[in-house]
Protein backbone atom coordinates (compact mmCIF):
# COMPACT_ATOMS: atom_id res chain seq x y z
CA UNK A 1 0.00 0.00 0.00
CA UNK A 2 1.52 3.27 -0.96
CA UNK A 3 1.58 5.93 1.68
CA UNK A 4 3.13 8.71 -0.36
CA UNK A 5 2.38 9.24 -3.98
CA UNK A 6 4.07 11.91 -6.10
CA UNK A 7 2.90 12.60 -9.57
CA UNK A 8 5.11 14.62 -11.91
CA UNK A 9 6.21 16.96 -9.16
CA UNK A 10 8.34 19.95 -10.08
CA UNK A 11 9.82 22.47 -7.72
CA UNK A 12 11.22 25.67 -9.10
CA UNK A 13 12.75 28.35 -6.95
CA UNK A 14 12.30 32.01 -7.88
CA UNK A 15 10.11 31.30 -10.90
CA UNK A 16 10.10 33.98 -13.56
CA UNK A 17 13.18 35.68 -12.19
CA UNK A 18 16.69 35.65 -13.61
CA UNK A 19 17.89 33.37 -10.84
CA UNK A 20 15.23 30.77 -11.57
CA UNK A 21 16.37 27.35 -10.53
CA UNK A 22 14.62 24.02 -10.91
CA UNK A 23 15.47 21.90 -7.90
CA UNK A 24 13.24 19.03 -8.89
CA UNK A 25 11.62 18.23 -12.16
CA UNK A 26 8.95 15.73 -13.07
CA UNK A 27 9.39 13.45 -10.12
CA UNK A 28 6.94 10.57 -9.86
CA UNK A 29 7.25 8.31 -6.86
CA UNK A 30 5.33 5.75 -4.91
CA UNK A 31 6.48 5.03 -1.42
CA UNK A 32 4.94 2.04 0.26
CA UNK A 33 3.96 2.06 3.89
CA UNK A 34 6.22 0.51 6.52
CA UNK A 35 9.33 0.55 4.42
CA UNK A 36 12.58 2.42 4.49
CA UNK A 37 13.44 4.40 1.41
CA UNK A 38 16.78 6.05 0.90
CA UNK A 39 17.23 9.05 -1.35
CA UNK A 40 20.79 8.99 -2.55
CA UNK A 41 22.73 11.42 -4.63
CA UNK A 42 25.38 14.07 -4.40
CA UNK A 43 24.67 17.30 -2.62
CA UNK A 44 22.57 19.64 -4.72
CA UNK A 45 20.77 16.78 -6.35
CA UNK A 46 17.45 17.74 -4.79
CA UNK A 47 17.28 15.29 -1.88
CA UNK A 48 16.48 17.90 0.73
CA UNK A 49 13.96 19.63 -1.52
CA UNK A 50 12.20 16.36 -2.08
CA UNK A 51 12.11 15.71 1.63
CA UNK A 52 10.68 19.11 2.38
CA UNK A 53 8.03 18.63 -0.26
CA UNK A 54 7.05 15.30 1.22
CA UNK A 55 7.19 16.85 4.66
CA UNK A 56 4.81 19.59 3.49
CA UNK A 57 7.31 22.28 4.38
CA UNK A 58 7.06 23.77 0.95
CA UNK A 59 4.70 23.58 -1.95
CA UNK A 60 5.45 22.09 -5.37
CA UNK A 61 5.44 24.35 -8.39
CA UNK A 62 3.45 21.76 -10.29
CA UNK A 63 2.36 18.18 -9.93
CA UNK A 64 0.47 16.45 -7.18
CA UNK A 65 1.46 14.98 -3.89
CA UNK A 66 -0.86 12.60 -2.08
CA UNK A 67 0.00 11.52 1.42
CA UNK A 68 -1.99 8.99 3.38
CA UNK A 69 -4.67 9.26 0.74
CA UNK A 70 -4.95 13.01 1.12
CA UNK A 71 -4.30 15.41 -1.69
CA UNK A 72 -1.99 17.98 -0.17
CA UNK A 73 -0.80 20.03 -3.11
CA UNK A 74 -3.05 23.02 -2.62
CA UNK A 75 -3.58 22.71 1.09
CA UNK A 76 -3.33 25.95 3.03
CA UNK A 77 -0.23 26.39 5.04
CA UNK A 78 -1.79 26.00 8.42
CA UNK A 79 -3.53 22.80 7.41
CA UNK A 80 -0.28 21.48 6.03
CA UNK A 81 1.33 22.25 9.35
CA UNK A 82 -1.51 20.52 11.13
CA UNK A 83 -1.12 17.51 8.91
CA UNK A 84 2.60 17.41 9.52
CA UNK A 85 2.05 17.65 13.24
CA UNK A 86 -0.36 14.74 13.09
CA UNK A 87 1.45 12.33 10.82
CA UNK A 88 5.07 13.18 10.29
CA UNK A 89 8.33 13.50 12.14
CA UNK A 90 11.24 15.37 10.68
CA UNK A 91 14.90 14.87 11.54
CA UNK A 92 16.96 17.70 10.12
CA UNK A 93 20.44 17.66 8.81
CA UNK A 94 21.89 19.97 11.45
CA UNK A 95 19.60 18.56 14.16
CA UNK A 96 17.99 22.01 14.44
CA UNK A 97 17.58 21.85 18.18
CA UNK A 98 16.86 24.97 20.17
CA UNK A 99 20.18 24.94 21.89
CA UNK A 100 19.32 27.39 24.64
CA UNK A 101 16.56 25.17 25.91
CA UNK A 102 16.87 22.07 28.01
CA UNK A 103 16.48 18.62 26.57
CA UNK A 104 13.02 18.13 27.93
CA UNK A 105 11.84 21.54 26.76
CA UNK A 106 12.99 20.70 23.27
CA UNK A 107 10.74 17.69 23.35
CA UNK A 108 7.75 19.34 25.02
CA UNK A 109 7.62 22.04 22.39
CA UNK A 110 6.28 19.64 19.81
CA UNK A 111 3.11 19.01 21.75
CA UNK A 112 2.47 22.52 23.05
CA UNK A 113 0.15 23.73 20.28
CA UNK A 114 -2.14 20.75 20.80
CA UNK A 115 -2.88 21.79 24.33
CA UNK A 116 -2.72 18.24 25.64
CA UNK A 117 -2.69 17.66 29.39
CA UNK A 118 0.75 18.17 30.77
CA UNK A 119 0.90 14.68 32.26
CA UNK A 120 0.44 13.16 28.83
CA UNK A 121 3.28 15.29 27.48
CA UNK A 122 5.52 14.27 30.36
CA UNK A 123 4.79 10.58 29.97
CA UNK A 124 5.54 10.65 26.28
CA UNK A 125 8.71 12.62 26.86
CA UNK A 126 9.97 10.36 29.65
CA UNK A 127 9.43 7.18 27.69
CA UNK A 128 11.31 8.59 24.71
CA UNK A 129 14.16 9.89 26.85
CA UNK A 130 14.52 6.48 28.46
CA UNK A 131 14.48 4.74 25.14
CA UNK A 132 17.23 6.94 23.73
CA UNK A 133 19.31 6.97 26.89
CA UNK A 134 18.96 10.68 27.55
CA UNK A 135 17.00 10.49 30.77
CA UNK A 136 19.96 11.58 32.91
CA UNK A 137 20.51 14.62 30.69
CA UNK A 138 16.92 15.79 30.66
CA UNK A 139 17.57 19.03 32.56
CA UNK A 140 20.68 20.01 30.61
CA UNK A 141 20.78 22.47 27.81
CA UNK A 142 20.81 21.00 24.35
CA UNK A 143 23.97 22.92 23.57
CA UNK A 144 26.10 20.88 25.98
CA UNK A 145 25.15 17.52 24.48
CA UNK A 146 27.59 15.59 22.35
CA UNK A 147 26.93 15.07 18.67
CA UNK A 148 25.54 11.59 19.16
CA UNK A 149 23.30 12.76 21.95
CA UNK A 150 22.05 15.63 19.87
CA UNK A 151 21.20 13.26 17.08
CA UNK A 152 19.32 11.00 19.47
CA UNK A 153 17.48 13.99 20.86
CA UNK A 154 16.51 15.05 17.36
CA UNK A 155 15.16 11.56 16.70
CA UNK A 156 13.27 11.61 19.99
CA UNK A 157 11.77 14.95 19.09
CA UNK A 158 10.62 13.64 15.74
CA UNK A 159 8.90 10.79 17.54
CA UNK A 160 7.12 12.95 20.13
CA UNK A 161 3.93 13.13 18.12
CA UNK A 162 4.08 9.41 17.31
CA UNK A 163 4.16 9.88 13.54
CA UNK A 164 3.56 7.30 10.82
CA UNK A 165 6.19 8.80 8.57
CA UNK A 166 9.73 9.77 9.54
CA UNK A 167 11.68 12.03 7.24
CA UNK A 168 15.42 12.02 7.83
CA UNK A 169 17.94 14.34 6.26
CA UNK A 170 21.59 13.26 6.30
CA UNK A 171 21.47 11.49 9.65
CA UNK A 172 25.14 10.57 9.74
CA UNK A 173 26.69 13.66 8.28
CA UNK A 174 28.10 14.90 11.57
CA UNK A 175 28.85 11.60 13.27
CA UNK A 176 31.81 9.24 13.32
CA UNK A 177 31.53 5.65 12.20
CA UNK A 178 30.61 4.12 15.56
CA UNK A 179 27.93 6.63 16.24
CA UNK A 180 26.66 6.36 12.70
CA UNK A 181 26.24 2.66 13.08
CA UNK A 182 24.42 3.18 16.31
CA UNK A 183 22.04 5.62 14.67
CA UNK A 184 21.45 3.29 11.76
CA UNK A 185 20.55 0.59 14.25
CA UNK A 186 18.02 2.95 15.79
CA UNK A 187 16.44 3.52 12.40
CA UNK A 188 16.23 -0.19 11.85
CA UNK A 189 14.36 -0.55 15.11
CA UNK A 190 11.97 2.15 14.04
CA UNK A 191 11.35 0.53 10.72
CA UNK A 192 10.68 -2.75 12.43
CA UNK A 193 8.08 -0.97 14.52
CA UNK A 194 6.26 -0.22 11.31
CA UNK A 195 7.20 3.39 10.66
CA UNK A 196 7.72 4.55 7.15
CA UNK A 197 11.20 6.02 6.82
CA UNK A 198 12.53 8.23 4.11
CA UNK A 199 16.20 8.96 4.53
CA UNK A 200 18.18 11.33 2.40
CA UNK A 201 21.84 10.45 2.55
CA UNK A 202 24.90 9.96 0.46
CA UNK A 203 26.80 8.22 3.23
CA UNK A 204 27.96 4.82 1.96
CA UNK A 205 27.54 3.50 5.47
CA UNK A 206 23.81 4.09 5.32
CA UNK A 207 23.52 2.81 1.81
CA UNK A 208 25.52 -0.34 2.51
CA UNK A 209 23.61 -1.50 5.54
CA UNK A 210 20.58 -3.66 5.21
CA UNK A 211 18.43 -0.75 6.30
CA UNK A 212 16.81 0.21 3.07
CA UNK A 213 14.24 -1.69 1.10
CA UNK A 214 14.67 0.75 -1.67
CA UNK A 215 17.25 3.25 -2.82
CA UNK A 216 16.39 6.10 -5.14
CA UNK A 217 19.25 7.83 -6.84
CA UNK A 218 18.80 11.47 -7.68
CA UNK A 219 20.89 13.77 -9.77
CA UNK A 220 20.12 17.31 -10.82
CA UNK A 221 16.56 17.03 -9.69
CA UNK A 222 15.75 13.87 -11.56
CA UNK A 223 15.49 10.23 -10.59
CA UNK A 224 18.24 8.40 -12.38
CA UNK A 225 17.96 4.99 -10.82
CA UNK A 226 15.75 3.09 -8.42
CA UNK A 227 16.97 -0.05 -6.70
Amino acid sequence: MSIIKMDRVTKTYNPGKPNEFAALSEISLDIPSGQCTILAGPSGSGKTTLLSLVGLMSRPSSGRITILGKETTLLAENFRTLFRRGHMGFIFQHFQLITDLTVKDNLDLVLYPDGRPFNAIRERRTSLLERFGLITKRAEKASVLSGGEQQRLAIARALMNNPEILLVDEPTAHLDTTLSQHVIALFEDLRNEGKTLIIASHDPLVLAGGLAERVIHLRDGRIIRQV
Partner: protein
Amino acid sequence: MRSIFYAVDFALKGLLRQKTKNLSIVALFALIVFLFSGIDFMSNALYNETLKALAFQPSLIIQDVRAGRQVPISLADMADIAKIPGVSSVKGRVWGYYFDPFTGANYTIVGDSGDLKELWDLRAILPDPAPSGAEPLFLKNGEALVGEGVIKIRRTRIGGVLNFQDHTGRPVPLKIRGTFSSNVSLWAHDLIVLTEEDARKLFGLDPGSGWDIAVDVPNEFEVPKVGEKILRINPGARVIATNQLKRTYGSSYGFRSGVVLSLNITCLLAFLILAYDRVARLSQEEQREIAILKAIGWQTRNVIRLNMLQSIILSLTGFLVGIVASYCHVFVAGAPLLRIVFAGWSVLYPPHPIPPSFDISKVFGLMFLTVVPYIAVGILPVWRAAVRDPEEVFRA
Protein backbone atom coordinates in the same frame (compact mmCIF):
# COMPACT_ATOMS: atom_id res chain seq x y z
CA MET B 1 -6.82 27.24 27.13
CA ARG B 2 -4.08 24.89 28.08
CA SER B 3 -2.17 25.68 24.90
CA ILE B 4 -2.19 29.35 25.92
CA PHE B 5 -0.73 28.35 29.25
CA TYR B 6 2.02 26.42 27.46
CA ALA B 7 2.57 29.37 25.18
CA VAL B 8 2.96 31.69 28.18
CA ASP B 9 5.45 29.32 29.67
CA PHE B 10 7.45 29.09 26.50
CA ALA B 11 7.24 32.82 25.92
CA LEU B 12 8.73 33.38 29.36
CA LYS B 13 11.52 30.94 28.68
CA GLY B 14 12.24 32.84 25.52
CA LEU B 15 12.28 36.17 27.31
CA LEU B 16 14.48 34.92 30.12
CA ARG B 17 17.12 33.90 27.66
CA GLN B 18 17.89 37.57 27.09
CA LYS B 19 17.45 38.79 30.61
CA THR B 20 19.27 42.09 30.36
CA LYS B 21 17.60 43.19 27.16
CA ASN B 22 14.10 42.28 28.22
CA LEU B 23 14.44 43.57 31.75
CA SER B 24 15.60 46.89 30.39
CA ILE B 25 12.57 46.96 28.10
CA VAL B 26 10.35 46.37 31.12
CA ALA B 27 12.21 49.09 33.00
CA LEU B 28 11.88 51.55 30.15
CA PHE B 29 8.24 50.77 29.75
CA ALA B 30 7.74 51.27 33.46
CA LEU B 31 9.51 54.61 33.18
CA ILE B 32 7.26 55.77 30.36
CA VAL B 33 4.16 54.74 32.25
CA PHE B 34 5.61 56.40 35.32
CA LEU B 35 6.04 59.70 33.51
CA PHE B 36 2.66 59.65 31.84
CA SER B 37 0.66 58.49 34.81
CA GLY B 38 2.48 60.74 37.25
CA ILE B 39 1.39 63.81 35.35
CA ASP B 40 -2.16 62.60 35.05
CA PHE B 41 -2.36 61.66 38.72
CA MET B 42 -0.92 64.94 39.83
CA SER B 43 -3.09 67.20 37.73
CA ASN B 44 -6.20 65.25 38.60
CA ALA B 45 -5.53 65.17 42.30
CA LEU B 46 -4.76 68.87 42.36
CA TYR B 47 -7.90 69.59 40.44
CA ASN B 48 -9.99 67.54 42.83
CA GLU B 49 -8.41 69.36 45.74
CA THR B 50 -9.24 72.65 44.12
CA LEU B 51 -12.83 71.57 43.72
CA LYS B 52 -12.96 70.63 47.39
CA ALA B 53 -11.52 73.96 48.41
CA LEU B 54 -13.96 75.80 46.20
CA ALA B 55 -16.95 73.77 47.27
CA PHE B 56 -17.98 76.13 50.04
CA GLN B 57 -16.77 79.33 48.56
CA PRO B 58 -19.34 82.01 47.87
CA SER B 59 -20.92 81.88 44.42
CA LEU B 60 -19.68 85.33 43.47
CA ILE B 61 -16.69 87.36 44.56
CA ILE B 62 -16.67 91.08 43.82
CA GLN B 63 -13.44 93.04 43.64
CA ASP B 64 -12.82 96.64 42.86
CA VAL B 65 -10.26 97.36 40.19
CA ARG B 66 -8.42 100.59 39.36
CA ALA B 67 -5.87 100.67 36.59
CA GLY B 68 -6.11 96.95 36.33
CA ARG B 69 -5.08 96.46 39.94
CA GLN B 70 -7.19 95.35 42.78
CA VAL B 71 -7.99 98.04 45.37
CA PRO B 72 -10.09 97.97 48.52
CA ILE B 73 -13.76 97.90 47.70
CA SER B 74 -16.26 100.20 49.32
CA LEU B 75 -18.78 98.32 51.39
CA ALA B 76 -21.48 100.93 50.70
CA ASP B 77 -23.06 98.93 47.89
CA MET B 78 -23.61 95.90 50.09
CA ALA B 79 -27.14 96.84 50.97
CA ASP B 80 -28.08 97.22 47.30
CA ILE B 81 -26.53 93.89 46.42
CA ALA B 82 -28.38 92.17 49.23
CA LYS B 83 -31.64 93.37 47.72
CA ILE B 84 -31.05 91.57 44.41
CA PRO B 85 -33.49 88.64 44.21
CA GLY B 86 -31.75 85.31 44.66
CA VAL B 87 -28.97 86.58 46.90
CA SER B 88 -28.97 84.88 50.25
CA SER B 89 -26.07 86.61 51.96
CA VAL B 90 -23.50 89.33 51.35
CA LYS B 91 -20.34 89.68 53.33
CA GLY B 92 -17.56 92.21 53.10
CA ARG B 93 -14.31 90.42 53.73
CA VAL B 94 -11.20 91.78 55.34
CA TRP B 95 -8.33 89.55 54.59
CA GLY B 96 -4.93 89.56 53.03
CA TYR B 97 -1.42 88.33 53.20
CA TYR B 98 1.27 89.18 55.65
CA PHE B 99 4.90 88.78 54.70
CA ASP B 100 6.95 87.74 57.67
CA PRO B 101 10.51 89.01 57.14
CA PHE B 102 11.96 86.76 59.85
CA THR B 103 10.91 83.52 58.24
CA GLY B 104 10.42 84.60 54.64
CA ALA B 105 6.95 83.11 54.74
CA ASN B 106 3.63 84.58 53.73
CA TYR B 107 0.69 84.10 56.04
CA THR B 108 -2.93 84.38 55.11
CA ILE B 109 -4.63 86.75 57.50
CA VAL B 110 -8.39 86.70 57.87
CA GLY B 111 -10.31 89.15 59.99
CA ASP B 112 -13.51 87.63 61.24
CA SER B 113 -15.43 88.56 64.33
CA GLY B 114 -18.30 86.21 63.62
CA ASP B 115 -19.37 83.20 65.60
CA LEU B 116 -16.56 80.77 65.09
CA LYS B 117 -18.21 77.91 66.88
CA GLU B 118 -17.76 75.45 64.07
CA LEU B 119 -14.17 76.45 63.63
CA TRP B 120 -13.65 76.26 67.34
CA ASP B 121 -14.55 72.60 67.31
CA LEU B 122 -11.48 72.00 65.23
CA ARG B 123 -9.12 73.29 67.86
CA ALA B 124 -6.34 70.96 68.77
CA ILE B 125 -5.45 72.26 72.19
CA LEU B 126 -6.66 75.21 74.12
CA PRO B 127 -4.94 76.81 77.04
CA ASP B 128 -8.24 77.90 78.59
CA PRO B 129 -10.72 75.38 79.84
CA ALA B 130 -13.09 74.55 77.03
CA PRO B 131 -15.78 77.21 76.87
CA SER B 132 -19.24 76.02 77.73
CA GLY B 133 -21.78 75.75 74.93
CA ALA B 134 -23.90 78.70 76.03
CA GLU B 135 -21.11 81.21 75.81
CA PRO B 136 -20.65 82.69 72.32
CA LEU B 137 -17.18 82.04 71.02
CA PHE B 138 -15.91 85.34 69.86
CA LEU B 139 -12.29 86.08 69.41
CA LYS B 140 -11.21 89.06 71.47
CA ASN B 141 -9.00 91.78 70.15
CA GLY B 142 -5.37 90.80 70.40
CA GLU B 143 -6.13 87.12 70.05
CA ALA B 144 -5.64 84.81 67.08
CA LEU B 145 -6.33 81.30 65.84
CA VAL B 146 -3.37 80.16 63.78
CA GLY B 147 -2.58 77.24 61.54
CA GLU B 148 -0.09 74.58 62.49
CA GLY B 149 2.41 75.79 59.96
CA VAL B 150 2.61 79.22 61.49
CA ILE B 151 3.24 77.78 64.95
CA LYS B 152 5.94 75.54 63.60
CA ILE B 153 7.76 78.10 61.53
CA ARG B 154 7.68 80.72 64.29
CA ARG B 155 8.73 78.12 66.86
CA THR B 156 6.05 79.15 69.29
CA ARG B 157 3.19 77.40 71.08
CA ILE B 158 -0.40 77.95 71.98
CA GLY B 159 -0.57 80.78 74.46
CA GLY B 160 2.51 82.36 72.94
CA VAL B 161 2.59 85.77 71.34
CA LEU B 162 3.21 86.62 67.70
CA ASN B 163 4.62 90.08 67.11
CA PHE B 164 3.51 91.56 63.82
CA GLN B 165 3.91 95.07 62.46
CA ASP B 166 1.28 97.13 60.74
CA HIS B 167 2.05 99.09 57.59
CA THR B 168 3.42 102.04 59.53
CA GLY B 169 5.75 99.86 61.55
CA ARG B 170 3.80 99.89 64.78
CA PRO B 171 3.85 96.51 66.56
CA VAL B 172 0.68 94.44 66.70
CA PRO B 173 1.06 91.68 69.28
CA LEU B 174 -1.25 88.68 68.92
CA LYS B 175 -1.79 86.00 71.50
CA ILE B 176 -2.26 82.54 70.05
CA ARG B 177 -5.58 81.34 71.31
CA GLY B 178 -5.65 77.99 69.51
CA THR B 179 -4.80 76.12 66.39
CA PHE B 180 -6.61 74.02 63.83
CA SER B 181 -6.63 70.27 63.92
CA SER B 182 -4.39 68.57 61.45
CA ASN B 183 -7.47 67.27 59.62
CA VAL B 184 -7.67 70.54 57.80
CA SER B 185 -4.01 71.43 57.70
CA LEU B 186 -4.09 71.15 53.93
CA TRP B 187 -6.29 74.20 53.93
CA ALA B 188 -5.38 75.97 57.13
CA HIS B 189 -1.65 75.49 57.26
CA ASP B 190 -0.81 79.15 56.83
CA LEU B 191 -4.00 80.64 58.13
CA ILE B 192 -4.28 83.24 60.89
CA VAL B 193 -7.74 84.25 62.01
CA LEU B 194 -8.09 87.42 64.08
CA THR B 195 -10.77 89.95 64.81
CA GLU B 196 -11.86 92.22 62.02
CA GLU B 197 -10.71 95.23 64.00
CA ASP B 198 -7.22 93.80 64.43
CA ALA B 199 -7.07 92.91 60.79
CA ARG B 200 -8.01 96.42 59.73
CA LYS B 201 -5.36 97.76 62.04
CA LEU B 202 -2.75 95.42 60.58
CA PHE B 203 -3.62 96.22 56.98
CA GLY B 204 -4.39 99.89 57.51
CA LEU B 205 -7.84 99.52 56.03
CA ASP B 206 -10.68 102.03 56.56
CA PRO B 207 -13.76 100.83 58.40
CA GLY B 208 -15.92 101.52 55.32
CA SER B 209 -14.10 99.22 52.97
CA GLY B 210 -12.98 95.62 52.61
CA TRP B 211 -10.85 93.65 50.18
CA ASP B 212 -13.68 91.93 48.49
CA ILE B 213 -17.37 91.16 48.83
CA ALA B 214 -18.61 87.60 48.96
CA VAL B 215 -22.11 87.01 47.62
CA ASP B 216 -24.00 83.76 48.12
CA VAL B 217 -26.55 82.74 45.52
CA PRO B 218 -28.08 79.37 46.43
CA ASN B 219 -29.54 78.69 43.00
CA GLU B 220 -26.72 78.04 40.58
CA PHE B 221 -28.77 79.09 37.56
CA GLU B 222 -29.37 82.58 38.93
CA VAL B 223 -25.67 83.33 39.31
CA PRO B 224 -25.15 84.96 35.88
CA LYS B 225 -28.22 87.13 36.30
CA VAL B 226 -27.14 88.27 39.75
CA GLY B 227 -23.65 88.97 38.44
CA GLU B 228 -25.09 91.10 35.69
CA LYS B 229 -27.12 93.10 38.17
CA ILE B 230 -24.13 93.64 40.42
CA LEU B 231 -22.28 95.06 37.43
CA ARG B 232 -25.10 97.52 36.95
CA ILE B 233 -24.72 98.66 40.54
CA ASN B 234 -20.94 98.92 40.31
CA PRO B 235 -19.82 98.97 36.66
CA GLY B 236 -16.11 99.14 37.52
CA ALA B 237 -16.07 96.01 39.64
CA ARG B 238 -14.69 92.65 38.75
CA VAL B 239 -17.16 89.87 39.41
CA ILE B 240 -15.81 86.35 39.61
CA ALA B 241 -18.09 83.33 39.64
CA THR B 242 -16.86 80.28 41.52
CA ASN B 243 -18.22 77.98 38.84
CA GLN B 244 -16.10 79.73 36.32
CA LEU B 245 -13.10 79.39 38.58
CA LYS B 246 -13.62 75.66 38.72
CA ARG B 247 -13.75 75.40 34.96
CA THR B 248 -10.74 77.58 34.49
CA TYR B 249 -8.71 75.60 36.98
CA GLY B 250 -9.80 72.46 35.19
CA SER B 251 -8.68 73.57 31.77
CA SER B 252 -5.53 75.01 33.26
CA TYR B 253 -4.57 71.65 34.75
CA GLY B 254 -5.68 69.83 31.64
CA PHE B 255 -3.65 72.17 29.47
CA ARG B 256 -0.61 71.91 31.66
CA SER B 257 -0.66 68.14 31.72
CA GLY B 258 -1.29 68.20 27.98
CA VAL B 259 1.81 70.29 27.39
CA VAL B 260 4.00 68.09 29.53
CA LEU B 261 2.57 64.94 28.00
CA SER B 262 3.19 66.24 24.52
CA LEU B 263 6.80 66.71 25.44
CA ASN B 264 6.80 63.15 26.66
CA ILE B 265 5.43 61.91 23.37
CA THR B 266 8.97 62.10 22.10
CA CYS B 267 9.96 59.59 24.77
CA LEU B 268 7.07 57.39 23.76
CA LEU B 269 8.06 57.51 20.11
CA ALA B 270 11.66 56.71 20.89
CA PHE B 271 10.53 53.85 22.98
CA LEU B 272 8.23 52.55 20.27
CA ILE B 273 11.10 52.57 17.82
CA LEU B 274 13.02 50.50 20.31
CA ALA B 275 10.07 48.16 20.62
CA TYR B 276 9.86 47.87 16.87
CA ASP B 277 13.51 47.08 16.78
CA ARG B 278 13.09 44.29 19.29
CA VAL B 279 10.79 42.39 16.99
CA ALA B 280 11.86 43.68 13.60
CA ARG B 281 15.50 42.76 13.57
CA LEU B 282 15.44 39.22 14.76
CA SER B 283 18.85 37.65 14.92
CA GLN B 284 19.81 34.67 12.79
CA GLU B 285 19.40 32.53 15.86
CA GLU B 286 15.90 33.75 16.64
CA GLN B 287 14.79 33.26 13.06
CA ARG B 288 16.16 29.75 13.12
CA GLU B 289 14.20 29.03 16.27
CA ILE B 290 10.98 30.24 14.74
CA ALA B 291 11.71 28.08 11.72
CA ILE B 292 12.28 25.08 13.98
CA LEU B 293 8.99 25.68 15.74
CA LYS B 294 7.19 25.83 12.44
CA ALA B 295 8.96 22.75 11.17
CA ILE B 296 7.96 20.66 14.16
CA GLY B 297 4.33 21.57 13.78
CA TRP B 298 3.62 25.06 15.09
CA GLN B 299 1.23 26.96 12.92
CA THR B 300 1.98 30.52 11.88
CA ARG B 301 -0.80 31.53 14.22
CA ASN B 302 0.92 29.86 17.15
CA VAL B 303 4.16 31.63 16.40
CA ILE B 304 2.47 35.01 16.09
CA ARG B 305 0.60 34.39 19.29
CA LEU B 306 3.86 33.48 21.01
CA ASN B 307 5.48 36.74 19.99
CA MET B 308 2.43 38.78 20.91
CA LEU B 309 2.41 37.08 24.25
CA GLN B 310 5.98 38.14 24.81
CA SER B 311 5.06 41.72 23.96
CA ILE B 312 2.08 41.57 26.26
CA ILE B 313 4.10 40.08 29.09
CA LEU B 314 6.76 42.77 28.77
CA SER B 315 4.33 45.64 28.47
CA LEU B 316 1.92 44.46 31.12
CA THR B 317 4.68 43.91 33.65
CA GLY B 318 6.23 47.25 32.85
CA PHE B 319 2.85 48.90 32.99
CA LEU B 320 1.96 47.52 36.40
CA VAL B 321 5.37 48.34 37.85
CA GLY B 322 5.21 51.84 36.41
CA ILE B 323 1.74 52.63 37.59
CA VAL B 324 2.33 51.37 41.12
CA ALA B 325 5.62 53.24 41.33
CA SER B 326 3.97 56.36 40.04
CA TYR B 327 1.20 56.10 42.60
CA CYS B 328 3.74 55.77 45.39
CA HIS B 329 5.72 58.68 44.00
CA VAL B 330 2.80 61.06 43.71
CA PHE B 331 0.52 60.11 46.53
CA VAL B 332 2.84 58.63 49.12
CA ALA B 333 6.07 60.56 48.61
CA GLY B 334 4.38 63.78 47.56
CA ALA B 335 5.64 63.96 43.98
CA PRO B 336 9.11 65.41 44.54
CA LEU B 337 9.90 65.16 40.82
CA LEU B 338 6.75 66.76 39.48
CA ARG B 339 6.13 69.41 42.09
CA ILE B 340 8.00 71.98 40.09
CA VAL B 341 5.68 71.66 37.11
CA PHE B 342 2.44 71.85 38.96
CA ALA B 343 2.95 73.69 42.20
CA GLY B 344 4.14 77.17 42.88
CA TRP B 345 6.83 78.07 45.32
CA SER B 346 6.34 78.94 48.90
CA VAL B 347 8.06 78.62 52.24
CA LEU B 348 4.97 77.30 53.90
CA TYR B 349 3.81 74.14 52.26
CA PRO B 350 1.26 71.85 53.83
CA PRO B 351 3.05 68.77 55.11
CA HIS B 352 0.78 66.04 53.79
CA PRO B 353 0.99 64.46 50.38
CA ILE B 354 -1.96 65.17 48.12
CA PRO B 355 -5.01 63.07 48.82
CA PRO B 356 -5.10 60.46 46.08
CA SER B 357 -7.50 60.50 43.22
CA PHE B 358 -7.13 57.34 41.22
CA ASP B 359 -9.55 54.76 39.96
CA ILE B 360 -9.73 51.81 37.67
CA SER B 361 -10.74 53.86 34.65
CA LYS B 362 -7.35 55.60 34.82
CA VAL B 363 -5.73 52.21 34.42
CA PHE B 364 -7.64 51.58 31.20
CA GLY B 365 -6.82 54.98 29.81
CA LEU B 366 -3.13 54.67 30.49
CA MET B 367 -3.10 51.23 28.96
CA PHE B 368 -4.60 52.69 25.83
CA LEU B 369 -1.87 55.28 25.71
CA THR B 370 1.06 52.94 26.26
CA VAL B 371 0.29 49.24 25.85
CA VAL B 372 -1.79 49.60 22.70
CA PRO B 373 0.83 51.44 20.61
CA TYR B 374 3.47 49.06 21.92
CA ILE B 375 1.60 46.00 20.75
CA ALA B 376 0.46 47.62 17.52
CA VAL B 377 3.99 48.49 16.53
CA GLY B 378 5.08 44.86 16.82
CA ILE B 379 2.41 43.21 14.72
CA LEU B 380 3.97 43.65 11.32
CA PRO B 381 7.51 42.49 12.08
CA VAL B 382 6.24 39.59 14.15
CA TRP B 383 4.13 38.45 11.27
CA ARG B 384 6.99 38.86 8.85
CA ALA B 385 9.18 36.64 10.97
CA ALA B 386 6.45 34.09 11.51
CA VAL B 387 5.53 33.46 7.89
CA ARG B 388 8.98 32.67 6.59
CA ASP B 389 9.23 29.16 5.25
CA PRO B 390 11.34 27.02 7.58
CA GLU B 391 13.07 25.43 4.65
CA GLU B 392 14.16 28.80 3.37
CA VAL B 393 15.56 29.77 6.76
CA PHE B 394 17.43 26.52 7.24
CA ARG B 395 19.01 26.84 3.86
CA ALA B 396 20.19 30.40 4.48
